[in-house]
Structure formats: structure tokens, C-alpha cells
């Protein structure tokens, strides 16, 4: 009976804010995470888990934060939004996390965000979409660049090349659909007109028909493919097979070695915005992202024997931002940590330079985050900006 009641008591105690026990100075700092380590988004969540595990351990080896050890509790939501919400609730009520880093996908983040708002626990999301921080939610922050920034970056590059009319081709999945919407929203800012707008479903194995339609429109000066996963690689191959001469742009969604492997030589000349971590070795030493990115890259590679992805970088930044905020707050008091997070300024992460504020809970700008690259000889090469 008592055993059954215990969680209930603990839960209600947490909910009404009665401290279960006094927080002593040598208590660990509890960091909670819910990540999509398995399931369809596992290629995002897996490097995030690896990153957090590795760097929390390293921080502890170096004496922890504020002289206290970090204690990490993580759950795998397998990419399911309802699971994410359940785990978020458990992290808040049962594990009494001081700060939560997680929400690999936008779906998982949005399902859980409201809990953090209600229970007033600082939450740093690893999800891409703009909706996470727009409108601003008091307790919710995020580290990844948004799809809107990617669209802006691509359009800026087009504008520089004198391109004004483009064909857009995107997937109907969550990422592609959101990207398409953002592309339409910001195209005007760069004097770009989307004259062809094609879509495909994420499982499609051939986009020749859509590309043939785009090619049929003589006005089109460039093609922009906004999507992630394997479909953009098929688009790239179909584009090359059709012998289309127009420049092809991709989004940050394909910025992985996997895309290079799948698309092969068809990807030569493709341009896309990427996270600095992907091109860390190519960055000049004067670049503010060079040092943090190399540090992350080398530690990760030494431990796991593979190059980290941009997705792992998001969790690295989230962890470092959390540590930075706790140090500046001088405690784990939720309000103080939240305020410190919001006051983050000129923080050099691997994804970019973070300057948060009351109306910006992501804090990245285009200049410091995305780098335009062109694929040359089967690898990324930086474009001069």
C-alpha cells in the first residue's frame, strides 16, 4: 500500500511545490532528457544521446558545475509525441529535473512544451521548427537553426547570383511542408518569385515527373529542394539524369554524409546551408565557431570513432548553454536559471553564436550559424560569403 502511494505523494509534493527534502549544496544537479533514440528519428536522437552522455561525464570528471555533480536521466520517446509528453511529465514530477534538454523532433517538443510552461521548469528543445519559439514561451528555449533561416540563407545566395525566379520542390512530410511554407513567406524579402511549386510524398522513389514539369517552365532560373531524408538524394539524381542545367539548391536537412553517398556524382555543384560543425575543419581560425566546433568534433570522434552530425551539435550547445546559465545563476533555482538562459549573450556554440533575449529564445542569426557550401569532388567546400 505504502509503496503504491509513494509515487503519488512524491508527485503531489512536486506539483504543489513542497520540497521533498532540503536541497543541500552537494546534491547533484539533475539534468533530464527525452530523446528519439530509436524509431524513425533515431538518426537525430542517437547522436544526441551519445553527445550528452559523453559531455556530462566529461564535465563531472572536471569537477562538475558549481562544485556539484551532474546527474543525467534520459528516456527514449522513440519519436512518438505522446510518449514524449509522458516522459516529460516523469522528468518533472518524479525525477525532479532542474533543467530538461530534449524533444528531438518538433512533434515531441510541442507535445511536452506546455508541461514545462505549467510546471515552470527550464526546457531547451533540440527541434528545428520555428513554432517552438514563436510565439515565445517563457520556459522554452531551443538551439537548432530554423527552417526559415535556411530559406533566407539560400535565397540570399540566389540573390547574389542574380536569380529571381525559381522552382520549389518539397516533400509533404513535416519538415518539407514547414520548409515550403517558410520559403513562401520569406521569398519576397530577397526579390525571389516562386514560379513553380511541386511536392512529392516522402516515400516516393521517383521525382522525374515533378522535375520535368519544372524544367518545362522557361522562367525558372534555379531549383530549390526543401526536405530531408533520402528523397532529396533521389531528386538530385533525377535532376542529374534529366540533364537539367539550372543550379540546384538543397536545405540543411540533407547536410550529412549520407546524402553525399546516396546522391553520388549527381550532387556535384549543389549548394546548401550547413551547420558550422559539418565543415569545422574547413573554417578559418578567425571564425568564432572554429574553436568550439573542433573541440566538440575531436572529443566525439575520439570516443565514438565517427564524425558528429549537426544534430549532435544541437544537444552539445543545449548542454553548454544550460551549464553556462546555471553557473551565471549561481544556483539551480528554476527562475534564476531561466532568467540566466534568457540573458545569454555572445555565447559561442558549435551551431552558431547565441544572443538570447525576452523575445528570442533561440538567439541565432544567419551570419553566425549557417555556412553556404557547394558540393565539389564529392565533399563540402565552403563558399566565400
Amino acid at each position, binding site marked *: 500500500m505504502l509503496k503504491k502511494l509513494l509515487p503519488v505523494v512524491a508527485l503531489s509534493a512536486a506539483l504543489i511545490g513542497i520540497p521533498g527534502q532540503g536541497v543541500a549544496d552537494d546534491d547533484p544537479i539533475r539534468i533530464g532528457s527525452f530523446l528519439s533514440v530509436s524509431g*524513425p528519428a533515431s538518426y537525430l536522437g542517437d547522436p544526441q544521446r551519445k553527445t550528452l552522455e559523453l559531455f556530462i561525464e566529461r564535465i563531472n570528471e572536471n569537477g562538475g558545475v558549481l562544485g556539484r555533480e551532474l546527474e543525467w536521466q534520459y528516456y527514449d520517446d522513440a519519436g512518438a509525441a505522446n510518449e514524449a509528453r509522458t516522459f516529460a511529465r516523469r522528468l518533472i514530477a518524479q525525477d525532479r529535473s532542474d533543467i530538461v534538454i530534449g524533444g528531438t523532433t518538433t512533434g515531441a517538443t510541442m507535445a511536452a512544451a506546455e508541461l514545462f510552461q505549467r510546471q515552470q521548469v527550464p526546457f531547451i528543445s533540440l527541434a528545428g521548427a520555428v513554432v517552438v519559439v514563436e510565439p515565445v514561451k517563457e520556459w522554452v528555449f531551443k538551439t537548432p537553426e530554423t527552417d526559415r533561416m535556411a530559406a533566407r540563407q539560400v535565397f540570399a545566395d540566389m540573390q547574389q547570383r542574380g536569380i529571381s525566379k525559381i522552382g520549389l520542390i518539397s516533400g509533404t512530410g513535416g519538415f518539407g511542408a514547414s520548409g515550403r511554407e517558410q520559403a513562401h513567406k520569406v521569398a519576397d524579402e530577397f526579390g525571389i518569385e516562386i514560379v513553380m511549386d511541386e511536392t512529392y510524398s516522402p516515400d516516393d*522513389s*521517383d*521525382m522525374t*515527373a515533378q522535375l520535368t514539369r519544372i524544367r518545362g517552365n522557361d522562367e525558372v532560373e534555379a531549383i530549390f529542394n526543401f526536405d530531408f531524408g533520402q528523397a532529396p*538524394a533521389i531528386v538530385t539524381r533525377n535532376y542529374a*539524369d534529366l540533364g537539367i542545367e539550372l543550379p540546384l539548391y538543397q536545405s540543411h536537412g540533407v547536410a550529412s554524409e*549520407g546524402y553525399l553517398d546516396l546522391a553520388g556524382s549527381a550532387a556535384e555543384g549543389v549548394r546548401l546551408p550547413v551547420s558550422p560543425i559539418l565543415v569545422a575543419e574547413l573554417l578559418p581560425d578567425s571564425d568564432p565557431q572554429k574553436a568550439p566546433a573542433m573541440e566538440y568534433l575531436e572529443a566525439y570522434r575520439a570516443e565514438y570513432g565517427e564524425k558528429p552530425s549537426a544534430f549532435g551539435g544541437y544537444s552539445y550547445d543545449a548542454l553548454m548553454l544550460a551549464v553556462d546559465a546555471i553557473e551565471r545563476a549561481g544556483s539551480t533555482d528554476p527562475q534564476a536559471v531561466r532568467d540566466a538562459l534568457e540573458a545569454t549573450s555572445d555565447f559561442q556554440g558549435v551551431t552558431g553564436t547565441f544572443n538570447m533575449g525576452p523575445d528570442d529564445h533561440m538567439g541565432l542569426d544567419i551570419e553566425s550559424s549557417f555556412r553556404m557550401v557547394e558540393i565539389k569532388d564529392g565533399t563540402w567546400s565552403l563558399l566565400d560569403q
Partner: protein
Amino acid sequence: MAEFLQFLVTGITIGCTFALVALGFCLVYNASHVINFAQGDFVMVGGMSAVFIMSSGVPMWLALVLAVLIGGALGALLYKGGIQPAKNADAIQLIIITVGAALFIRGVAHVIWGTGYFSMPGFTGDTPIRFLGVVMVPQSLWVIGVTVGIVTALALFFTRTRLGKAVLATSYNRDAAKLMGIDTGMILVLSFGLAGLLGAVAGVIMTPITFTNYEIGVMLGLKGFVASVLGGLGSFVGAVAGGLILGLTEAMMAGYISSDYKDAVAFVLILLILFFMPSGLFGQRGVERV
């Protein structure tokens, strides 16, 4: 005109891959009246095996043969390990066993190969062929050629060989076939094995075009099932016709109207055909035995 031809070529290529999956459904359905929902996963196993055998340094053609054999073995194993032990279970129960097997195969593939997408080079290069303004990768010719070859071989097998006729006899009446001295157990293993083989062939020939991934069987299985229902479950001609209709509809919709409605139109088409021709285009009228 060039546009139309382009859509036609695209549609036929996609259609052939659907047709190959649909043929696998037919084989198993004819022999056992089971709809094998693991058929799509045979395709996945074929493609994935080929990619990984090749990456371990085995020459391409040998890797292709090995991958196809693995598919065949998997089909026979599904019968031996899943269907046969269930003995005289209803078709519905057997179908559920195949659903379970599909999930299991997918799970194992996930553990062994991970979640990434993989590709392999086309059998005879990747330089596209251009004629009359139409572009086509050489692999498309392989897909179309192999489909034609397999359909011909199956037709000959079922009409010209004793073994093929024994399979047909088993499908019409298992007890009577047994009385005539046909080893029906062996025939069923053979049918499942052939279905696995066929699935794996589909997997290896389409991987250079569509890529492969541990989950690719889900969508392929669904489309292949739709194609076989469209053509009339159990009819080989129907399976090919169903696959081509589905592929061409998708390509024409995406090309001329909008890719948003592509899948919807394919499914509406199926509803219509099934409303007016409940047993599909080439299906035999169901005869209720009283």
C-alpha cells in the same frame, strides 16, 4: 510529347516494381490463400543483403545472386517457422502470422543494418540514356526487362511443367492434390520460397534507383498489395496490369495535375474498380461452395 513519353517511362518503371511485389502476393495466395504481408520485407531483405554483401568486397553479380538466394531462403523459412507450425489455422490467423513475421524481419534488419538509407551502383552503369527528349537510366531497362522475363518464366512454369501444375492443383484443392500423390507440404515451401526469391529480385533490381532502408518494405508491400487486388488477387496478368496502372497513374498525376493528389487518385481508382469489378480486373469470380 516528350513530356508525355517521360511520364510514360517513369510510370512504367515504377509500375514494374509494384508488379514484381504484386506477383509475390499472387504466388503465396495461389498456393495457400494467405496474403503474405511480409512480401514487402522480402524486397527490403533482398536489397539490403545485396548492398551489404557487395560492401564486404564480393563481386556485384555474385552478391546479387546471394541476395536473391537469401530472399528465397527467408520465404521458405517463413513457411517452415511460421505458417506450417500453425497447421490448420484459418487464413485470417495465417495472415496475422505474416504481419508478425514482417514486424520481426523489420526489427532484425533494424538491428543488423541500422536506420540509414543505402544505395548501390546500377548493374550497367549510371549514365542516362537519352532519346526523343526522354531520359532513362539503364537500370530502368533492367527493371522492365527482368519483370518481363519473370512473368514469362512464371507463365511457362505454371502451364508447361509438372511442378507448376502441381502448385496449381494444390491451390485448387489441397486434399485432392494430396490424394493424387502431390507432396503439398513441399509445394507450399516452394511457393513461399519462390515468393521470397521474387521479392529479393525486386529488391536488388530497384535498389540502384529507389535506394533501400529497413522500412522500405512497408510502403512497397502496401502498393504491391493494392496492385494485386486491382488486378484480381491470384492472377499473374492481373498483378502486372495492376502494378502498371498504379505506376502510370502516379506518374501522370504527378506530371500533369499535382503530386499532392497522386496517391489519392490511385486509391480512388482502386475503390472504383472494386465497386464495379469486385474481383479485380482479371480475377476469377468467387464461387461459393455450399
